[in-house]
C-alpha cells in the first residue's frame, strides 16, 4: 500500500510538531517504509464482522460524583519551564 516518501515524513512531522533534520527525514522515510511493508501482512486477513478492540480492560470506571482534592496550583506549576502569575507562560500566540 503506502510507500513512505520524504514528503510523507514531512507532512506527518508537521502534524506531530516535530522539526526534523534533513538526515532524519531521509532515514525515517526509508525505515518506516520497511516497517509498513512488513505490516502489510495484516491486509490479507479477513476481518469482516470482527469488532475492533481498543483495550483489554473492563469498564468499571464510574465513581460517585464527589469532588476530590486535586494538585495545588503551585505544585502543578512547579515543574514548568516558564510560569508567571499562576499561569504557564508561552511565546505570544495572538497579535505581536
Amino acid at each position: 500500500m503506502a510507500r513512505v516518501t520524504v514528503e510523507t515524513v514531512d507532512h506527518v512531522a508537521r502534524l506531530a510538531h516535530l522539526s526534523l533534520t534533513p538526515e532524519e527525514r531521509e532515514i525515517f522515510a526509508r525505515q518506516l517504509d520497511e516497517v509498513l511493508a512488513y505490516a502489510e501482512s495484516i491486509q490479507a486477513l479477513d476481518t469482516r464482522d470482527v469488532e475492533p478492540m481498543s483495550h483489554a480492560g473492563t469498564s468499571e470506571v464510574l465513581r460517585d460524583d464527589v469532588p476530590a482534592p486535586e494538585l495545588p496550583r503551585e505544585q502543578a506549576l512547579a515543574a514548568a519551564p516558564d510560569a508567571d502569575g499562576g499561569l504557564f507562560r508561552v511565546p505570544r500566540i495572538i497579535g505581536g
Partner: protein
Amino acid sequence: MSGLTALSATEIARRVAARDVSAEEVARAHLDRIAEVDGGVGAFLHVAAERALAKARQVDAALAAGGSPPPLAGVPVAIKDVLDIEGMPTTCGSRILDGYRPPFTATAVARLEAAGAVVLGKTNMDEFAMGSSTENSGFQPTRNPWARDRVPGGSSGGSAAAVAAGMACGGLGSDTGGSIRQPAAMCGVVGLKPTYGRVSRYGLVAFASSLDQVGPIARSVEDAARMAEVVCGWDPSDATSARREVPPLASDLGGGARGLRIGVPWRFLSAGVDEGITSAFRAAIDALRSAGAEVVDVDLPHVSHAIATYYIVATAEASSNLARYDGVRYGRRAGGGGDLKRMYGETRDRGFGPEVKRRIILGTFVLSSGYYDAYYLRAQKVRTLIRRDFEQAFATSDVIATPTSPIPAFRLGEKTSDPLQMYLADIFTVPANLAGIPGLSLPCGLAGGLPVGLQLLGRPFDEATLLRAGHAYERLTTHHLARPPLGGSR
C-alpha cells in the same frame, strides 16, 4: 555483610522482622554493592542513598516499637525510571524530562513502600520505554551483568540488570510489549507482567495506554509473587484498574505441576528461534512433563501478525500520549525565537531521541487521514482475532509456554541501525499485551553462556496459576540459582 545482597526477599523480610538484621544494614549492603559494581553495569540513573537509609530506619523503628512486620520489611528495590516518586527525578530515559521532579508517587511504588520495601533509586530504560535493549536511553547504556559487551534487554533493562547483579533484591518495571519479561529473560531473573488492569498505572508515565502494565522483577518466582501480591489491586486513581479481588499469590505456590495442562504453540515456535534457546525450552517442557504436567499442542493462528499489529497500535497510542511533551508544563524547553509552533518543534526535536521520533512519526501516520482504516482500525480488528486465539487455546490448557525471546542477549550496537530487526525480537512477548493476559518469564538455563527465559502465559487475572507453574518448575531445576560472573564481594 556482603551475604545480604544474595538473600531472597522472603529471607530478608523474615530476618528483618525477627530483628536478626536491620533494614538499615540491608540497605547499606545494597548501596555498597551499587557503589562497587554499577560503574561497570550502568543500571541506575539515580541512587537515593539518604532517602533509602531514612526509610530503612523507619522500618526498623516501627518494628522496634512493636509494630506487626510488613510483608516486604526491609526489602531493597530498584524502580524503573518510568514510575514517579515524589521529590525524586523522573526522566523516563529522556532528555526532554531532564530535571523533572514529579509532585506525586506512583501507586505501585507507594504500595511497595507501605509494605516495608526500601527504594534504592531509579533505573535506566529505553527512552519512554520504547526499545528492547535499553540502548535508547538518553543518558547511558546498561550492560548485561552476564556479558558486559551485551545488552540487558529492554526496556526495563536497568531494573533487570540491578536485580541480576545483586544491587537490588527486587525491582519494578513496566511492560507494553515485553519490557519486563524480555530483560528478565536476558538477565537471568524472573519478571511478571500482570493482567491488564491488575496493577494501577497511576504515576506510570504513559507509553501505550491500552497495553502498559506495571510488574515485579525478582530472583525467584516466590519473590515475584510476594511483590505482586503487594502491588496488585484496585486503585481509584486509575480508571482502567480492575475491581477484582487479588487472591493470595505468595502463600499458595506449592501446587506442583501435576495435572497442569501446558499448551505449547509448536507451529508458532518453528522458525527463527536460536538453537540454544530451543533446546533449553524443550528441556523445560520435558521437565514439567516428567513432573506430571500434561503437555498439549495449541494453535494460535493469528499471532504471526502480532508484531505488525503491535507496532501499529502501540505507536498510534504513543503519538497521542507523547503530544504532552511540548515544553510548556514540565521538562526542557528549546528556544523557538518567540514563535509557539517553532518552540514546540524544536523542544521535541532536541528532547526526543531517534527511536521516539520514529515511533511518533509512524503512529501519527497510521492515525492520519486516508490511512486510519487501513492501518489503525484494521490492527484493532486483528487484535480481536489474537485475543480470540488465546481464549480458544485456554479452553484446552491452563498455561501456554513459549521461549520469552527468540534470541539471547545481543551485542551493544548490533541492532541499533535496523529498527525492524529489533522489533521482530519481541515476537513472543507482544501477544500477551495485545490480549491483555498475564505473562511470566523465568530462567530455564543458558545458551552459549547467556540466560534463556521460559515464558508462561495465563488466563486473564489468573496470575496465581502462572506463579504456581513457575514455582513448580523452579523446584525441578537449579537454573534460577545461576548468578552472573560479575565478581565483587557478594
